[in-house]
């Protein structure tokens, strides 16, 4: 039986007094929302995904967009979303897919934590006049140093340090694969990472030749599909990351639809053109922590122990114990991806319901590693829902060494978070492989936007540190004393190991 039409999600209207029939909206909308008929622009609102491309290009501000012009009868349990999901699945019998991050209105813990500043008893430090150090080293550090002191009293360092990544800001760009995003997007991010003195992840999509000039700022990923992996790829990166899981879909693999596997993507991934690229849920050579250790050491052996190896896991309930296992595996950093992390495509039931927030995950991991005396064995990189410089500062105060940003970097390139990344129709040329759409993203401009964002956040972090009387990021890391919980319950304060405001 037909369920019938559901209320429109978006209503697009064009003000005829303003419109000059230039047709830019028609050219720009890849979803087919607009067409010209009898010298008038007709709108088919059901195709609209609210990507705002038309609005961004309309020279006359003639376009209006209303969300849910006709809504369902309100109901606190059977919300519009629950009903629509049921209609959808009743018709298709399928798993629901979605792009971008978690869409459920969970409380955001970042917004319930406030930072500290100095008054009177200690002076705040002005970063414009005093040095402010954000330099961070990602990698394994010794627990203690050994020295040789000769008869003359000269000191020689006996301990040998293993390679670390040096970053000038605690902000790195997370792994988004070429395939999920376009080559122009990849080039833009790679240039921004290089210009900012930081690093960027390749994702599980291999390394396109066009990125080779930026390879010393790239972290190459080895995921369960092993797409694009060979010794040349491993040697080109500054570090290697083994991806076990992703915050948007913990416990499951990945799926790049065949539509996005164009010739270039097929070459970079080393798979046939047009074929779906399916990454299995587990690595089929990692069924235990010992297996992971073997892969870490194999990758290090293959690259002559010159590259740090990271392991990325989704933030799940037992994240602290898992991270403690990783810390003992020769890995140099553990990347923890919180449940608000983005994705090109994920089953919505996973995206919205599986995993834990990054704030609690970092708090638990840092505490566990310290308790076990292995905190110096690995760096902690936090990702998944880092939205601004305050989030970065707070997560470092909870114990992270650095962050990965993903969605924020895409937004800096124009993404409007419409959440339809999996359709290969991204009108901003970011999450698409369609040449005409990819051409819309100009790496000369987009790279500057991303660089600006990282620069602006870095300045803000410096100001926040200076206000807190801290001139080096080491003294912010794990400094939970400088955080207070605002309207968090006692159990959450205990997990975060912070005091409430006023205490």
């Amino acid at each position, binding site marked *: 039986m037909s369920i019938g039409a559901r209320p429109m999600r978006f209503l697009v209207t064009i003000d005829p007094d303003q419109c000059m029939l230039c047709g830019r909206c028609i050219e720009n909308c890849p979803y087919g929302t607009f067409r010209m008929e009898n010298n008038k622009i007709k709108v088919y609102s059901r195709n609209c995904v609210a990507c705002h491309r038309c609005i961004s290009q309309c020279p006359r501000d003639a376009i209006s967009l209303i969300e849910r012009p006709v809504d369902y009868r309100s109901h606190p349990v059977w919300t519009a979303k629950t009903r629509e999901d049921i209609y959808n699945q009743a018709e298709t019998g399928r798993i629901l897919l979605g792009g971008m991050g978690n869409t459920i209105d969970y409380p955001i813990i970042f917004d319930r934590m406030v930072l500290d500043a100095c008054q009177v008893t*200690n*002076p705040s430090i002005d970063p414009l006049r*005093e040095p402010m150090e954000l330099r961070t080293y990602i990698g394994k550090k010794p*627990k203690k*140093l050994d020295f040789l002191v000769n008869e003359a009293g000269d000191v020689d360092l006996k301990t040998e340090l293993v390679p670390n990544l040096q970053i000038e800001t605690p902000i790195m760009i997370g792994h988004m694969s070429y395939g999920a995003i376009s080559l122009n997007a990849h080039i833009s991010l790679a240039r921004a990472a290089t210009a900012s003195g930081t690093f960027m992840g390749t994702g599980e999509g291999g390394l396109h030749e066009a990125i080779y000039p930026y390879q010393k700022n790239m972290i190459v990923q080895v995921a369960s599909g092993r797409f694009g992996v060979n010794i040349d790829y491993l040697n080109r990166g500054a570090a290697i990351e083994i991806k076990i899981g992703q915050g948007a879909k913990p416990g499951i693999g990945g799926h790049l639809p065949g539509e996005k596997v164009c010739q270039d993507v097929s070459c970079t991934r080393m798979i046939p053109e047009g074929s779906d690229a399916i990454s299995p849920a587990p690595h089929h050579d990692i069924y235990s922590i010992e297996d992971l250790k073997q892969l870490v050491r194999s990758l290090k052996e293959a690259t002559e122990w010159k590259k740090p190896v990271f392991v990325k896991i989704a933030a799940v309930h037992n994240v602290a114990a898992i991270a403690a296992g990783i810390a003992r595996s020769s890995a140099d950093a553990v990347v923890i991806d919180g449940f608000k992390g983005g994705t090109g495509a994920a089953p919505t039931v996973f995206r919205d319901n599986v995993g834990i927030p990054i704030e609690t995950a970092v708090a638990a991991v840092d505490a566990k590693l310290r308790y076990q005396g292995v905190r110096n064995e690995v760096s902690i990189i936090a990702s998944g829902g880092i939205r601004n410089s305050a989030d970065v500062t707070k997560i470092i105060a909870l*114990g992270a060494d650095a962050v990965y940003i993903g969605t924020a970097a895409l937004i800096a390139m124009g993404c409007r978070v419409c959440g339809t990344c999996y359709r290969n129709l991204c009108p901003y040329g970011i999450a698409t492989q369609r040449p005409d759409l990819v051409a819309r993203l100009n790496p000369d401009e987009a790279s500057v936007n991303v660089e600006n964002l990282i620069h602006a956040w870095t300045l803000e972090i410096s100001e926040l540190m200076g206000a807190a009387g801290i001139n080096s990021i080491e003294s912010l890391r794990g400094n939970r004393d400088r955080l207070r919980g605002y309207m968090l319950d006692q159990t959450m304060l205990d997990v975060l190991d912070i005091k409430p405001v006023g205490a």
Partner: protein
Amino acid sequence: MCGIIGVIDRNQELMDGSNIRNALAVMDERGSGEGSGYVAYGVYPDYADLYALHIFYDTIIEPKEQVEELLENWGMIEEDEEIPTYEQSRMEKAHIPWRYFFRPNRKLMSQSSTPDDDIVTHIVMTINTSIQGALVFSSGKNLGVFKASGWPKEVADFYRIEDYEGYIWLAHNRYPTNTSGWWGGAHPFNLLNWSVVHNGEITSYGTNKRYIESFGYRCSMFTDTEVVAYQMDLLVRQHNLPLHLAVRALAPPFWDEIDRMDEKNRDLNRAIRLTYGSAMMNGPFAIVVATQDAIVGFSDRIKLRPLVAGTHEDRLYISSEEAAIRTMEPAISHITMPKAGEPVIGRVIT
């Protein structure tokens, strides 16, 4: 605020406490009359190989019994007595200071390479975190901390500090913010042979606390200064860092400077920052740390608190104020202002 002063005689010639009492009082402008204290090294020559534990008791009934039971579990009390005190009109005697000369039974910590120190550290941490009404405020050998709430002269006279003789002295005139009036909050802070006087506020306290607690130390004094003593103990006693490199870890050079160093020094300083980043201290501070054979003074990396050093004959003086040094040694021959983060170290001749 707060005023600090320290002195070491490199020939270990003894000085009584009368001079440092007057010098500390010169800095009354830096204090508030709510906390003063002194530590002297060399005060218990007759018990030099025993740990001198100074304990504040709220009463000498229950907490004292518990402390003594704990001590006897871990070793032997060779001698004990109430520390003599002399009533001062304005001062309230809030606690009863007691001292024990204690010999740990090292067989009880046979797995450790420094069993005696580890036993005493354990005892200090246990008493201070779990015995109500007792607080260990001095636990080294042949040294003693004397502190209370009051102005420098009052506290000195309360203990008759001129009756004690030491070759190292540190003293502190407190303007409290974290804990008012509490005797335990006065400086010097001490653990084993480490004593610390501190002017300022450590903004990295949360980081330092988490770091040091992961090595088994417990911060129990409700104030930031104690982490300095614990970190020095960790870096120098447990990790065997030379003293000047331990200070380097606590107040390291900026990366800009490190990048400009020659290769050997660059590698050394980089390794220290990477390994001991969590021990690094931030915020405004001037600190003097003493141990059995040396004192070291240093300020934060941008010198937000004053620190002056002076030398005269065999003595090194380090203080917040030049006037205090001149009070102790009017004929002082050489005064310097150390650079930010740069350690000033005085050692005894061995």
